[in-house]
């Protein structure tokens, strides 16, 4: 009786681990299936039971996706250009504004900061119609610039950088100022180099966010030649979802390469930035 009870409690002790591992399988299985399917031929792609191993290694689907009627090569190029330009823009504008809001005294600072925080609350779905009319007026519909221009700065990025610059010890900046350095020099030579980890987080979050974005691109871009990755994938799938599944999974594999790279190499840079605001009361 006692032995049975202790065995039961040992088993119950393993339950959390079993639950966690089941959850982990559920998180990874779709990606494993995606990768395995990306190697299949159109004939074996629908095999049941499904293939879970990417064997035999076969890259034909990748070549087909890159050069197909919906050219993924073009979409990769479009998405890369847009994501890089938006990221570079935010890396210039956000730390400057964040630093000014945290560390410089100028008239109107409080009011501007409140306006900025308020704009964090406005979902793009609410402003999409005026934005579309604006882009139409500027003849930028179906032009990547319609996505780059609104992305060159962001309230989230400014807020993230402001939070970082607030944590800098005042003495460091003061010492440079006493040495006669101009506000610009203090920022450029002292504050900005210290902000490297936050800048890395901002770059990763901005790049991935732009790379993954669907809503605005789907409304501003309407030709195959200007499609970004998510749009190209949806076009490949087709309105009746009749696209070649092996080729679509090859395309999806390429689309998630940046996310996978962050998963492998850069997760630690963004985790604290994303969670900090939630943990501190």
């Amino acid at each position, binding site marked *: 009786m006692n032995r049975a009870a202790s065995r039961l409690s040992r088993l119950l002790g393993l339950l*959390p681990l079993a639950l966690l591992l089941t959850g982990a399988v559920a998180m990874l299985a779709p990606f494993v299936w995606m990768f395995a399917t990306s190697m299949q031929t159109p004939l074996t792609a629908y095999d049941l039971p499904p293939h879970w191993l990417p064997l035999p290694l076969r890259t034909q689907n990748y070549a087909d996706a890159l050069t197909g009627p919906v050219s993924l090569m073009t979409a990769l190029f479009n998405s890369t250009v847009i994501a890089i330009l938006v990221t570079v823009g935010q890396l210039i504008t956000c730390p400057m504004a964040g630093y000014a809001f945290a560390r410089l005294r100028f*008239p109107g600072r*409080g009011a501007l900061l409140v306006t900025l925080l308020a704009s964090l609350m406005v979902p793009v779905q609410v402003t999409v119609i005026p934005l579309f009319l*604006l882009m139409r007026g500027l003849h930028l519909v179906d032009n990547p610039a319609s996505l780059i221009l609104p992305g060159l700065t962001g309230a989230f990025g400014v807020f993230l950088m402001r939070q970082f610059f607030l944590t800098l010890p005042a003495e460091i900046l003061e010492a440079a100022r006493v040495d006669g350095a101009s506000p610009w020099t203090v920022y450029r030579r002292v504050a900005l180099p210290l902000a490297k980890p936050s800048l890395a987080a901002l770059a990763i979050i901005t790049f991935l966010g732009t790379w*993954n974005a669907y809503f605005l691109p789907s409304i501003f871009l309407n030709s195959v030649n200007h499609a970004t990755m998510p749009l190209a994938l949806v076009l490949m799938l087709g309105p009746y979802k009749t696209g070649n599944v092996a080729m679509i999974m090859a395309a999806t594999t390429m689309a998630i390469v940046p996310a996978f790279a962050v998963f492998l190499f850069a997760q630690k840079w963004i985790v604290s930035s994303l969670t900090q605001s*939630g*943990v501190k*009361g």
Partner: protein
Amino acid sequence: MHSQRPSKTPGSRREAWTGIAFVLPSVIGFAVFVLVPLLVALLLSFTQYDIINPPRWVGLANFARMASDHRMTVTWGNTVIYVAAAVLLINGLGLGAAVLLSRKLPGSMRTVLRSVYFFPSLVGLAYVSIIWQALMQRDTGIVNYYITLMGGSRVDWLNGTTAAMISVIVVDTWRNVGFTMLVYVSALQEVSITLLEAAQIDGAGPWRTFRRITLPLISPAIFFNVTTVTIGAFQIYESIIVLTGGGPGDASRSIVMYLAEQAFHQYNMGYASAIGVSLFVIILALTALQFMLRGKWVHHE
């Protein structure tokens, strides 16, 4: 914040000019791409506008039409269900996973599992939906394959009236649960072990300790996650487009899909703006309500 008035020394004047120059690009960006569009959307919501003819002022007609528009009621209803499901499931499962991950685990398993759970949050919702729509196909999808293997019967995940919404909720939850988990894990790390041990010495069981000590201490994280997930879930869009196309009929269509359809397929820009304003007002009111209730249940140290 600094409250003393800046003295008019050359240094402080230079600092003020630098500050203005530093914030100018961002302020112009917000004005042009957020604040002015918001005001224009508000104005357009009182007009009839088909993009060819100039907007015509119609007063509150769009809002009156919303009240009697059956499709609006349906898509708003669906959206409310998506939001409620997201808030409950993404937070419940995220907190559950975080609690399990905070226990003693062999080796570096905690770090590995944490990254694995977080990975889908890094992948765009459009991409994960493309994978899931293949998995959820009625005849060729592997979800139904394993269901029938275990003796169940096929479910029409993407085209069934109830199943379509469930599929959207499953994919949304699956993708976002890792984010809330991450926030909960870091919040749980801050909970003092001494406090938990003291409670146990006082004879409190694990559930009572969790309820009375852990939960209040991580309430800021709960607040943050509930607010973020609520705002995000109101905007649900591309997963529905890829998975169900909003169907069957309007059975899984969200309010943002209906807005986009009215604006960019039917060119009812005025009516679509009114829908957008309703979305904004509801998100704003709910967030304000959450902040007002914050004081009642969120613990401050």
